[in-house]
């Protein structure tokens, strides 16, 4: 099943029975690493859900921006899962998370220059060839600027897309947070971003902060992010859109209401 140009949610096992209601949401996304196990209840539930919903698999552990070579064991685990699940989409992050055999369980930043561009493109070529499918690349949340960046993140992403043929996962919350943290206008970022390559959009909410806003996926989407989302839809039309809520996960009705708000913008039943 392809991803419909509609609203999806991140699948949480505690919402499995609420999803029995017809039309509850249009599609589901999972974190691929959570399902890299040999058997048991997690996989059984995922198998059941994948019979009923279009699925997107979102990876957090490939370390595409890493200085180290890609981990062949992890690539094999990923291919095993994707071959079994056959999701409509697979996406990963412009970030690194492993080095020297240690996995940090976080999305760590890299500078945007020609050396990192070559490395990221080589890794994406390897991933797409090994998996036999296109991947989408998600823009990061930034907290600091690198002295050795020589090009903008939007230019960096566009060049990666052109060189590797990967698509883009546009995380509008990440654009908003980076803009707040680094002091730029998110609209200008979006104007420079390769919108023609977008295959999926992420929306999320964050914990309040003073000095720095952290990407927590722990709250409702904020009004400025909804406004940026509407602006993007005006440019590229209806696009599969995920409500990400991974910490302090609310009841299903709350998630569904967020998805409904995205759906209303997707179908233009209400003004932004």
């Amino acid at each position: 099943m392809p991803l419909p140009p509609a609203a999806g949610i991140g699948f949480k096992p505690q919402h499995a029975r609420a999803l029995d209601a017809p039309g509850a949401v249009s599609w589901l996304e999972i974190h691929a690493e959570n399902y890299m196990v040999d058997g048991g209840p997690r996989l059984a539930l995922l198998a059941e859900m994948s019979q009923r919903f279009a699925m997107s698999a979102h990876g957090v552990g490939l370390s595409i921006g890493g200085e180290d070579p890609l981990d062949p064991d992890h690539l094999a685990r990923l291919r095993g899962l994707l071959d079994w699940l056959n999701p409509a989409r697979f996406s990963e992050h412009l970030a690194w998370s492993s080095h020297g055999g240690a996995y940090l369980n976080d999305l760590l930043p890299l500078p945007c220059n020609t050396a990192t561009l070559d490395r990221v493109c080589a890794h994406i070529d390897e991933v797409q060839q090994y998996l036999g499918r296109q991947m989408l690349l998600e823009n990061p949340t930034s907290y600091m600027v690198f002295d050795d960046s020589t090009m903008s993140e939007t230019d960096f992403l566009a060049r990666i897309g052109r060189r590797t043929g990967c698509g883009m996962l546009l995380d509008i919350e990440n654009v908003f947070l980076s803009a707040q943290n680094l002091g730029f206008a998110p609209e200008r970022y979006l104007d420079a971003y390769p919108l023609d390559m977008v295959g999926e959009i992420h929306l999320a909410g964050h914990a309040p902060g003073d000095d720095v806003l952290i990407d927590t996926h722990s709250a409702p989407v904020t009004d400025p992010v909804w406004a940026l989302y509407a602006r993007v839809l005006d440019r590229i039309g209806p696009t599969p859109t995920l409500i990400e809520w991974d910490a302090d996960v609310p009841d299903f009705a709350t998630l569904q209401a967020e998805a409904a708000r995205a759906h209303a913008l997707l179908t233009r039943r209400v003004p932004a």
Partner: protein
Amino acid sequence: MTQHGFVAALLSDAAPPVGAARFEVYRNSVTAALSATLAEAFPAVAKLVGRRFFDAMARDFLRAHPPRHPVMALYGDALPGWLKGFAPAAALPYLPEVAAIEQAWRVSCHAADAPPLDVTRLATDPDALTLAPHPSVRSLTTRWPALSIWARNTDRPELANAPAGEVLICRPALSVQARPAPAGTGATLAALAQGHPLGAALPDGAPHAEILACLFSAGALIERTP
């Protein structure tokens, strides 16, 4: 900045290599996320020591044993052994055993699926049967009543008075079960795993009938396929 330097600073209190204050966002996030992963994986340990103690303990642990790969479902396999040498928890000598039960539970939960032995096969063709432990089977021996302590801290009243001794954990279908097991159960399973026939696998002097009753009722055996 190299990624090597970044990682070294993330997993220590060293001065940030880059970005000063904003570097702390990453250090805090790495520590908090891994600590939360461990607290979710070891709920009884977290309850026994309290969350503040657990987070401080987890910080020391994850710096000594950072994850080796991105699959968090089993991260923490080194925690039970590491706890034995963690001096601040020495007043709770049963803590490593409780942690070992929680880790065995996770391993069992995520192990490969397999249909348990159809016991009617025993009646029809017992000589043709070669038995093996179910892939989800984990057995361990406790010196403290760790199964009871675990049960009382994870709301499992049916095991609240389980004694010290052997523990059998397995998942014949989709739900994991833990139970006290007679002495010799673990040795029997180890011998079966090595391919010994059932008769030879039961240790001398052990309560054979009790071991068999435990293994069959738990669904801990499968038929070994040639």
